[in-house]
């Protein structure tokens, strides 16, 4: 049945008990059932209640996406599963640290572009910069592509974190 309709990309937020093995359960679910993970972030968000929030960007046919949500929902330590893409308005952000080595004009050009993209310099030597940049995945991709000919040597990205707009909570 799957494969007959178009592949969609969805951002899913999962609230889980912060207990040992919970991330392994989520990752094992994706690998064991052959689902895609495009990005995954996890961190504790409520120390008092011991809750972590996982943001996973995944892709699949609508039937597969529905399966992913149902499978996540039945994991015992999962409190809530929300499909932010399906529910509409939400904010997605990603942070990247980007290291560029260059001298002369290329060095100046990288700094100029960083300024346009509102990336911050968080480390510099005579022949290198580390830029910090926050934004949508697309914006980060655009900046990283521009840095490619300007001496890009290293990238570290957090993956997407996301939250719904408006007053509702997960």
């Amino acid at each position: 049945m799957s494969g007959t309709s178009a592949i969609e990309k969805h951002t899913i937020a999962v609230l889980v008990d912060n207990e040992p093995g919970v991330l392994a359960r989520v990752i094992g679910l994706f690998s064991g059932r052959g689902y895609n993970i495009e990005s995954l972030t996890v961190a504790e968000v409520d120390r008092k209640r011991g809750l972590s929030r996982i943001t996973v960007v995944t892709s699949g046919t609508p039937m597969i996406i529905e399966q992913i949500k149902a499978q996540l929902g039945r994991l015992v330590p999962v409190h809530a599963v929300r499909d932010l893409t399906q529910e509409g308005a939400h904010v997605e952000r990603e942070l990247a640290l980007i290291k560029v080595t260059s001298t002369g004009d290329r060095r100046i050009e990288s700094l100029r572009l960083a300024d346009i993209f509102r990336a911050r310099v968080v480390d510099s030597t005579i022949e290198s910069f580390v830029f910090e940049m926050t934004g949508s995945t697309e914006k980060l991709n655009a900046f990283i592509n521009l840095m490619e000919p300007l001496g890009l040597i290293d990238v570290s990205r957090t993956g997407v974190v996301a939250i719904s707009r408006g007053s509702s909570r997960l």
Partner: protein
Amino acid sequence: MSAAAMPGAEMVIKALVDQGVDVVFGYPGGAVLPIYDALFKQNQLRHILVRHEQAAVHAAEGYARSTGKVGVVLVTSGPGATNAVTGLTDALMDSIPVVCLTGQVPTHLIGNDAFQEADTTGITRPCTKHNYLVKDANDLSRMMHEAFYVARTGRPGPVVVDLPKDILFASGIYTPPASVKHKTYRPQTTPDPAKVAAAVELIGNAKRPVFYGGGGLINSGDRACALFQELVRLTGYPVTLTLMGLGAYPASDRQFLGMLGMHGTYEANLAMHDCDLMVNVGARFDDRVTGRLNAFSPGSKKIHVDIDPSSVNKNVSVDLPLIGDAAETLAEIIKAWKARRLKPDAKALGAWWKQIDAWRGRDCLRYQNSDRIIKPQYALERLYALTRDRDLYVTTEVGQHQMWAAQFLKFEAPRHWMTSGGLGTMGYGLPAAMGVQVAHPEALVIDVAGEASILMNIQEMSTVMQYRLPVKVFILNNQYMGMVRQWQELLHGGRYSESYTASLPDFVKLAEAFGAVGLRASRPDEVDRVIKEMIKVDKPVIVDVVVDQTENCFPMIPSGAAHNEMLLGPQDKQSEGPVSEEGMVLV
């Protein structure tokens, strides 16, 4: 009012007793010695010492499936736990509630490759519904009670509690079950009323309906099965059951079409293919049931009642999913049906039954009997005829004999049929029968077996002897792994690669070596005598029924084929041509 502290091992026993457990299937070892010491000092729990940990899990499954209670397993760390993995996977696939306690090396040694260490929670994560590693004695009783709650609630399944040895010695405060409430796990049991109303509407308007029941009915309980029967009779619609659902509707009833699926009946599969409304209660559109997906029941609306939302729209798109417990959902449907005084469309239903009766007329389970050689179907027909008025429980191994047993033994009530459906575990039947017999000491418990499967857990004959469990092993012996041979014949040009067992034991002598009774039938006229003798003997018995080596199991939907492309017998296979390449790659 502070409760007294007690050692971890004693808390394990107390938690089991408080959960209403009366029997544990297990095997001792270094890491669980403190629990075995605590077992020794009490007399509320009975321990059945198996001969292999896989058998402990299957025995617990047999116990659970035949009673509706949670089955309990106790094994040691490392190999004890890894040997249990097949059983756990089996229980997961068939949704059987099992709690498996595994020993673990002391917490300070975890991760050090200690003697008999295995990453049990890591290994069992994908083959359990949930698992726990206890790292603090004060968490032990809570985790034990949660394990039972998770195992039996919602869609049931196996839960592992991994117990490091130092925790078993450490003191902790015991929490009774009543004060443990799970933080998150609350499966939805009550269906959405709007969907119930929509379901009743669809059921009332159907012209060619069929009910399709599965193992979920049996897991939900006797009430779900009774309500299912009530609804089927209220409507007068035909009903079929999956392998796991057999017994949920009385097999002798006229409305019952028999089992569906790969080796199901012609009438059941064609009714599924041609229906305009399918009402699935507690089944999961397994690939053995659907055949080729894009040709599965093309013209029907589909209602799916399931407690597990992830079962819905997994293989087959359904029009109306109802998430809830089978009993609660069926009760709501019946209530709405009666309140609206609905009547089925008598004319359409008459025509539909006429069509079904025509399919029935093909008599798809017919086989060519012989007076020289025992046909496996004949042996099972006789077994059914000679046991039908008894309190009979049947388990099976996996293969042709399993399918013939499903076709030829008729189950009138739930919980009397235990078989490995999802995982297809050879070696399931004997230990499962052991667990059933422990739960029902007076009942007649028969493991219908093949000679290949039975050898996978034959060591359990020693267990049934020790506990005087008069389990009967009824072997249909064709010297082949029959289902493998059948597929090699149909799909691989009759090249019987490694499916023949050239050196089988003499099963009669083997039975005697264990101290059991061995019987053999080699000719059709000996079958009744050995069955009667088997029933009469109040001891474990192995019956070696020497059957036709070349008999194949029909009807059959070849892999990759649709319901309406089924083979009815050996005469069909030439005309159908070879199986498609797509079909070949399917299991």
